[in-house]
């Protein structure tokens, strides 16, 4: 569809979506429970030497410390940083409290992680007219019950809601009204678009695409030529066309386990041994999730923090820890790391759709 003159988004693309994002969730929970940490730069996860930051308090963020940053780097940037061991059990229970609040308003809640969720409130249980008011109420309720602050974004689809929730963070909210969506997207830097990562952003900039308005000038065929299938997505999203179904039971796409080592691994023997341990952990998770998958991915982070992944797709779905481990080991041997490794991980993806309607199963000879 090509819009000229007055642009508008077709009504079937307009929902009332709220994206709720807890502010520095893990760090805030720790500061709540340990008053001596309040007002101080806190990092949850890792230590001075090893690991990665799972969450950083706002005080720490001023120093450029953010989640997924290697702890050693974080420490260099902020020597007074206090490292706290994560207590996921606790975060999970707080997350449950928050989810219970969401569910009072709508059953269409799609959790993205412990501290983030999409809510579709187009129809809500309390009959509140505007999503903006619902968001405000939810944030107030969260604060009353958990003494934690949340930010929210409200708009017509998931992507817009997510962009909006970043706007007045922390402890704020922003609504992008349907008629504001297209002008907003025109001014949005390309790197903020959903599905545009670092690499894609670089490529787009090389092509002269810096803002939504630049992207909009490209026709779909050209975008597909440059970006493959994603081209269609970019074409649509800048036009506000995202059918964002809020899925209460988010389908798992992969199951993984990884480990950062307290000392870098230098030899292949050490790495293979470590893989066995990671494989066991992964096997437990696979069993717990009753999952099976086809693609095994090996993740390697080298001492220089470069991360590489290698995958192999098997012929048939598997849940066998041995098979998965064998594939991971093979990937490791084939891509013999030429430097010391600080992190190893194995992921099983391409998961078998759980009990999809009447799926047939090819039987295998019993060798």
């Amino acid at each position, binding site marked *: 569809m090509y819009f000229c003159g007055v642009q508008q988004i077709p009504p079937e693309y307009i929902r009332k979506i709220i994206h709720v994002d807890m502010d520095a969730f893990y760090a805030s929970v720790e500061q709540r429970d340990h008053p001596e940490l309040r007002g101080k730069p806190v990092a949850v996860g890792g230590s001075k030497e090893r690991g990665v930051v799972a969450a950083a308090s706002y005080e720490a963020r001023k120093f450029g410390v953010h989640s997924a940053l290697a702890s050693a780097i974080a420490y260099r940037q902020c020597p007074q940083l206090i490292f706290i061991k994560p207590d996921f059990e606790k975060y999970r229970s707080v997350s449950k409290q928050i989810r219970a609040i969401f569910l009072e308003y709508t059953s269409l809640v799609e959790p993205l992680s412990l501290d983030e969720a999409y809510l579709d409130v187009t129809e809500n249980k309390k009959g509140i007219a505007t999503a903006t008011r619902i968001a405000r109420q939810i944030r107030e309720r969260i604060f009353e019950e958990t003494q934690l602050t949340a930010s929210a974004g409200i708009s017509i689809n998931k992507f817009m809601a997510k962009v909006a929730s970043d706007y007045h963070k922390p402890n704020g909210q922003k609504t992008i009204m349907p008629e504001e969506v297209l002008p907003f997207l025109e001014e949005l830097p390309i790197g903020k678009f959903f599905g545009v990562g670092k690499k894609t952003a670089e490529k787009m900039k090389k092509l002269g695409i810096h803002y939504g308005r630049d992207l909009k000038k490209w026709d779909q065929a050209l975008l597909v030529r440059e970006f493959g299938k994603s081209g269609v997505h970019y074409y649509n999203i800048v036009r506000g066309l995202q059918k964002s179904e809020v899925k209460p039971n988010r389908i798992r796409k992969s199951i993984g386990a990884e480990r950062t080592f307290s000392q870098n691994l230098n030899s292949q023997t050490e790495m293979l041994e470590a893989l066995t341990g990671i494989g066991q952990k992964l096997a437990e998770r696979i069993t717990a999730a009753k999952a099976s998958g086809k693609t095994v991915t090996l993740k390697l982070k080298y001492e220089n923090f470069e991360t590489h992944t290698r995958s192999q797709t098997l012929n048939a779905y598997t849940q066998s820890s041995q*098979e998965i481990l064998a594939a991971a080991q093979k990937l490791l041997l084939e891509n013999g790391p030429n430097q010391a490794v600080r992190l190893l991980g194995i992921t099983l993806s391409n998961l078998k759709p759980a009990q999809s309607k*009447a*799926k*047939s199963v*090819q*039987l*295998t*000879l019993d*060798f």
Partner: protein
Amino acid sequence: MKFIVSSGALLKQLQIVGGVLNTNNTLAILDNFLFDLKGKTLSISASDLETTISATLEVDSSDEGLVAIPARLLLDGLKALPEQPVTFVADEKSGTVEMSSDYGKYSLAFVEGDEFPKLPEMEDVSTTTIPGEILATAVTKTLFAAGNDELRPVMSGVFFQFSADNLTFVATDAHKLVRYRRNDQHSDHTAEFIMPRKPLTILKSTLASVGDEVNIHYNETNARFEFENIILTCRLIDGKYPNYEAVIPKENPNVMEIDRGTFLSSVKRVAIFSNKTTHQVRLKLAGSELHISAEDIDFSNKAHERLTCNYEGDDMEIGFNSRFLVEMLNNLDSDVINLEMSASNRAGIILPADSLEDGEDVLMLVMPVMLNS
């Protein structure tokens, strides 16, 4: 080193030997043909380290020499020449081979032949001899059923099983299995080894025109096939082949006899409408009727056909991957086949009902696709 040879004769041998060339070799020397000249006998070889093929041909020469010549360039150069005598002269000083035709001269840089990997010495060798034609048939009948799962390398090859009673060739990917047996052929030695896919693919195409006997020499790690002017040496797949006899069901009370061509075309037509991931077709047998159907629920596609057959047994329904059925039925030569079954969750066995040579025994087995409700 100097020799004169017919361009066509040389090209023919190079194309056979070139079957082993890889497009991306880790070792640069493997992008070359090794030319080993000893008087009137020129031997040319190519290798990928796993498999090495040599062919000898007669040339006009009284010279000796050993050089490695870039394979791709030489093949392309020769292909572009009409049949004629060409003269090859290797000049040690300039390090080039000059090829002269009626039209002019072409130079290629060569590499010292010593750098070419040596063939492994084979010790404790046993030998079995088999007519080329029979070996070609055995490979053709089995190779398609071999797997390509890197995690189960033994199943990526064909299992050779030699005994005093017969020679047996087996391939399986754990979903289907083919056993090709010759009761008219024997070996003085009992032996078992697993041949990888690549050398078999080369043998299959090369052997088709061979009337001669093939001498197969083998030990624990390698096998060497010698026939006419060709020697193919390869490393064997290391490992234990699955106990295939144990999975061939013995009691199969339900037997359908049907015209192979009719059955095959029906499966092909119906399969077009099957689910694109499972390729499942259903066979429903009742009386002397076979119903073949397929369904793709996701797209509401459906097909159903009815054939007549001879059927003995209880009424039953069984699902198969149509691709497997098509591959297997295509690979048989008989007019009529028997499909023997016991239950919808057990293997079906396809046997040719005619056109077998004396001493020839073909058995194909296919595991069903089950509806998981």
